[in-house]
């Protein structure tokens, strides 16, 4: 009986102290960590069409179409199929693709999740966090060039 009463006392303590740990999403936007991996952002200006991201992608999420002179024509990414592993960003030598913190996206059909390069370009930053800054320390190993300001727009 004492154990039962102890259990009841424990829950009552929680009921009376009035604290809650849930948040009212979407009224309160959750904090995401700077490293959080969300929807991709793509910069055509920076891309050198090396196709490494397409190669490394574990489940063929990225599709690149080039003409016969190896100029990039299309860069399509299915954000509904993506597993958000960040390997594309990791192998990209020029920071042309990176994952923003943006995790909110909706569509009526799954086909609308196939983003082309223009859509990928206009993906907004989440709360104006530039993920590059938080990932800078270890990105040095991958990025030979591309120092300074990066303009994705």
């Amino acid at each position, binding site marked *: 009986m004492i154990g*039962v009463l102890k*259990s*009841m006392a*424990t*829950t*009552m303590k*929680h*009921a009376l102290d*009035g*604290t*809650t*740990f*849930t948040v*009212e999403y979407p009224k309160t936007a959750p904090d995401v960590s700077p490293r959080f991996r969300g929807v991709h952002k793509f910069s055509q200006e920076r891309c050198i069409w090396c196709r490494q991201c397409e190669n490394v992608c574990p489940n063929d999420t990225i599709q690149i179409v080039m003409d016969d002179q190896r100029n990039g024509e299309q860069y399509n990414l299915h954000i509904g199929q993506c597993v958000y592993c960040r390997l594309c960003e990791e192998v990209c030598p020029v920071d042309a693709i990176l994952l923003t913190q943006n995790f909110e996206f909706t569509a009526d059909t799954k086909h609308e999740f196939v983003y082309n390069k223009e859509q990928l370009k206009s993906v907004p930053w989440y709360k104006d966090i530039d993920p590059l800054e938080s990932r800078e320390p270890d990105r040095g190993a991958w990025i030979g060039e591309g120092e300074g300001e990066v303009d994705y727009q």
Partner: protein
Amino acid sequence: MNAAIAPLQNGDTVLLPERIGELTGLSEFGIAGELIAAFLGAFIVANLMLAMTGVAGPWAKRKITAAFTDRIAVNHIGPGGILIIVADAVRLLSKENIIPENADRPAYDLAPIVIAGSALLGFAVIPMGSGIHLADPEVGLAFVFAVAGIASIGLVMAGYASGNKYSMLGGLRAVAQNIAYEIPLVVTGMSVVLFAGSLRMSEIVAVQNETTLFTIPGLEWAVPAWFALVNPFAFVLFLIANFAEVGRNPFDMPEAPAELIAGYQTEYSSVYFVLVYLGEFLHIFLGGAIIATIFLGGPAGPGPAELGIVWFLLKIWAVFLLTQWLRSAVPRVRIDQLIEIGWKGLLVLSFANLALTAAIVGLIA
């Protein structure tokens, strides 16, 4: 707070239908008028109770559970989220009523009505204070137990008629549980009757409030002889048996969400589900009403007698709160353990309690 317990006037036998009859002049029309007055009275009481379950089910229960689990709960529609009741009502009633192909009709359709109706019927003899008292038969207490017991038939009907194995298991559990706990419940109730010397509800209430158990020295506050204070042992027994009777934790075997999906109500949807759901809450409230009446002095409380209904509802809600509290903290027992507690524990204890009470009452007399 000096001697503030409002005494219930003895011989206050003006029942609600009579009062309505006099107020509206219906009593002049003979039996037909009395009947209409009675219906009006019943309508008022039933709606009061249904409104309470309406508040409890979609809103209060969510708020209480959320408080226990450190969550926020409904707060968007209306002040404190109270209008969720309207939203939920619209949502539930506008859903399609799906009836299983091999449901046994009309038992399937009747079950929700039986479950909800039996509980409502019980309120007929409960004195709620402020003159809200529909009928006061001599066998009041026996009547309450009898109609509350009808609910078991509803549960079995629901369980059997749904044509679902989970429902059937739930229905069977409900029977086993109700048989095991009805007897201790009634026997413990009998000990109160021994004290009060009557089955009439108004008298049971009156006896509790007329006698003084003891006076707290200094405060000069006369503690009335509520049976919960006179015989706490019987009170605890009755509480436990009542939880089993209404099927709440730790005895919510007939539903047992993790085991039997939702037990006897698995196949009910839309309006039927609302009825079953309301019926459950009505039963908790009826259990609370019985406890309040026979153990907690009914509508008695500090302040003028007109406040009786407030005190009475407060007592009912206290019992409801207790069920929710237990729900958050106490695991469900197993069916065999439940039966064991019922037959080997509560039954024996309740008879011991009865014998003891009889002896004491006999000695005093």
